[in-house]
């Protein structure tokens, strides 16, 4: 029987299925961070339960960590408590922790793939909605709440109702200056923030096949912003090449056996999906979000939309409110919008290729005097690699702040936050009201677009801008 990638992985992980009940799914890998785990460990303690599989559990600290300097003590008492709590919990329950003094610390969805923990065919969960990132490897990876974190710690299983399936086939070849980030913003713009609710999305097509692993991670990362349960891309030679030699990847003969198994995973010819959508990106322009939801997106060549251009009154109301919050007027070309801050980082775009792309734009240029710009590598390993390639020198010479790894300004739980009214070009994944700081105004863009905006002081169309510069 022809099966999709999702069906193959789901069916292989069902421990128990009663009629009329959610399936009990086995979890191959549980990733843990400091914000959504304290109450889960406390629950285990209260019920006198142990972690069933500490060998399948990996922890890191990312949301709360300061990126300014690791040598200074953490000023925020409550953040320090959470970090100390995770350290204590990992010690008590025997879970490996990539903590602040670990050379492999970083954003949880960056270090999993980096270390070869994330692999095709696995079920992977974490108390964080961007767990969808790992789907780039052909894994079934999704975010869970703290109660479910406790459930997985105690049983290594998860109760899940079987989702529907949705294939998004992206055809064409990406033009120069247009990135994976633009593709996923375009997808969310097209289907809306509830467009994939209840579905696991599989991304397919020529444009997806042509992406590197890091680019695939960017696309899968933002699946949650379209409401998807998970986002997946079938593994292929690009995937195997990325994984070979990584710390937790199988070695030698075991690696060959793993590859043979991974090759059985891609969707079979003739398998059907509950929904299908085809998109074309050969003429896609760089995208910029204008509003307070990841679906409120326009091209770099467009102007801020008029709320009355939508038929639905709820959508109009939301658009009006967004424009007021963002301090924007309909009809204003996005390239006329000045910015105050630039944030290059987050689990969406903080990997070495993202930093190289931004550095290419920044090289030999200067950050606009009115702009405060920073680059936050996704992990300590990426930071070291970037420094070995001299990218940090390029950024610093241009006037960017070069930081330690962490979630940083994506969500402002650490000292990196926007002040009310500050406008930021950000390579992160959410532009909700107050996301980066109360009253902060977030515009989601690619690393190239963020770097160019830092230099210009306003949004530009990076495609023609470099030549004109």
């Amino acid at each position, binding site marked *: 029987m022809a099966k999709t990638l999702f069906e193959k992985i789901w069916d292989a992980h069902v421990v128990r299925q009663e009629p009329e009940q959610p399936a*009990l799914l086995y979890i191959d890998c549980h990733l843990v961070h400091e914000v959504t785990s304290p109450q889960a460990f406390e629950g285990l303690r209260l019920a006198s339960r142990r972690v069933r599989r500490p060998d399948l559990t990996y922890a890191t600290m990312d949301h709360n960590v300061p990126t300014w300097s690791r040598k200074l003590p953490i000023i925020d008492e409550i953040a320090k408590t959470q970090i100390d709590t995770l350290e204590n919990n990992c010690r008590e329950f025997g879970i490996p922790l990539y903590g602040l003094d670990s050379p492999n610390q970083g954003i949880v969805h960056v270090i999993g793939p980096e270390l070869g923990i994330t692999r095709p065919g696995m079920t992977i969960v974490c108390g964080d909605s961007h767990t969808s990132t790992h789907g780039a490897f052909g894994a079934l990876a999704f975010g869970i709440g703290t*109660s479910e974190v406790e459930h997985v710690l105690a049983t290594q299983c998860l109760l899940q*109702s079987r989702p529907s399936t949705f294939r998004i086939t992206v055809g064409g070849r990406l033009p120069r200056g247009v990135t994976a980030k633009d593709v996923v913003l375009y997808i969310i713009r097209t289907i809306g923030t509830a467009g994939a609710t209840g579905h696991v999305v599989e991304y397919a097509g020529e444009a997806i096949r042509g992406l590197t692993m890091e680019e695939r991670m960017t696309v899968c990362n933002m699946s949650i912003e379209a409401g998807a349960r998970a986002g997946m891309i079938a593994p292929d030679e690009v995937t195997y090449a990325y994984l070979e030699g990584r710390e937790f990847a199988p070695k030698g003969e075991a690696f060959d056996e793993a590859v043979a198994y991974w090759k059985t995973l891609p969707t079979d010819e003739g398998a059907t999906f509950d929904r299908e959508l085809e998109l074309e990106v050969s003429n896609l322009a760089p995208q910029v979000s204008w509003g307070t939801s990841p679906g409120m997106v326009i091209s770099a060549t467009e102007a801020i939309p008029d709320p009355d251009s939508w038929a639905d009154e709820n959508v109009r109301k*939301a658009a009006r409110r967004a424009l007021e919050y963002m301090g924007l007027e309909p009809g204003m070309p996005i390239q006329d919008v000045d910015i105050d801050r630039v944030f290059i980082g987050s689990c969406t775009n903080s990997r070495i290729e993202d930093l190289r792309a931004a550095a290419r734009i920044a090289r030999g240029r200067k950050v606009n005097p009115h702009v405060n710009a920073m680059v936050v590598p996704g992990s300590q390993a990426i930071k070291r690699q970037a420094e070995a390639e001299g990218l940090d020198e390029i950024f610093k010479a241009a006037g960017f702040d070069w930081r330690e790894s962490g979630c940083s300004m994506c*969500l402002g739980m650490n000292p990196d936050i926007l002040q009310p009214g500050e406008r930021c070009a950000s390579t992160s994944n959410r532009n909700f009201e107050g996301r980066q700081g109360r009253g902060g105004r977030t515009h989601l863009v690619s690393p190239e677009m963020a770097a160019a905006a830092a230099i210009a002081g306003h949004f530009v169309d990076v495609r023609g801008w470099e030549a004109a510069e």
Partner: protein
Amino acid sequence: MEPFKRHTGLVAALDRVNVDTDQIIPKQFLKRIERSGFGQFLFYDWRFNLDGSINTEFELNAPRFAGASILLAGANFGCGSSREHAPWALADYGFRAIIAPSYADIFYNNCFKNGLLPVQLGDAEVARLFEAASAIPGYELTVDLERQWVVDDWGNKFGFAVDPFRRECLLKGLDDIGLTLQHEAAIAEYEAQRIAIN
């Protein structure tokens, strides 16, 4: 977990779509290590002005909604981050049920783990309830999980669908982990069979 069978209470109306979990519980409040005490931070950036004073423009601050235990909301409620702190804040604030045309998946799931019932009704039905909440001072609804309907004293009665397993667990206040551990043998069997190809 406190069981939910039937609840009658004052309705508070929040007529907005795509209310995300960053609004329900902003990130600066995720630093607590307990499950309790989040109610005071519910919708914090909307409830309070920058100087800490009450924002009288915010719908839920209207005096007539004080003490409400049923939240009436718009489509795609709870989108965005998976933070379970969102249902914790709603429940701690005093809400026992939410009524909306649609929810984001992770938030919907998280509600059931916390004795908070998310009811899904049709667009037209929710619109009628918004009208009623607006027109009738002290508007109350009864949410009945056993009979799977929502009913008021003004002739509105709407049935709702809910997953049978989740309904059962919520009616009885059952703990997921205890239930799963009843099948420990099946888990051990799966682990033994699992080929460590990965």
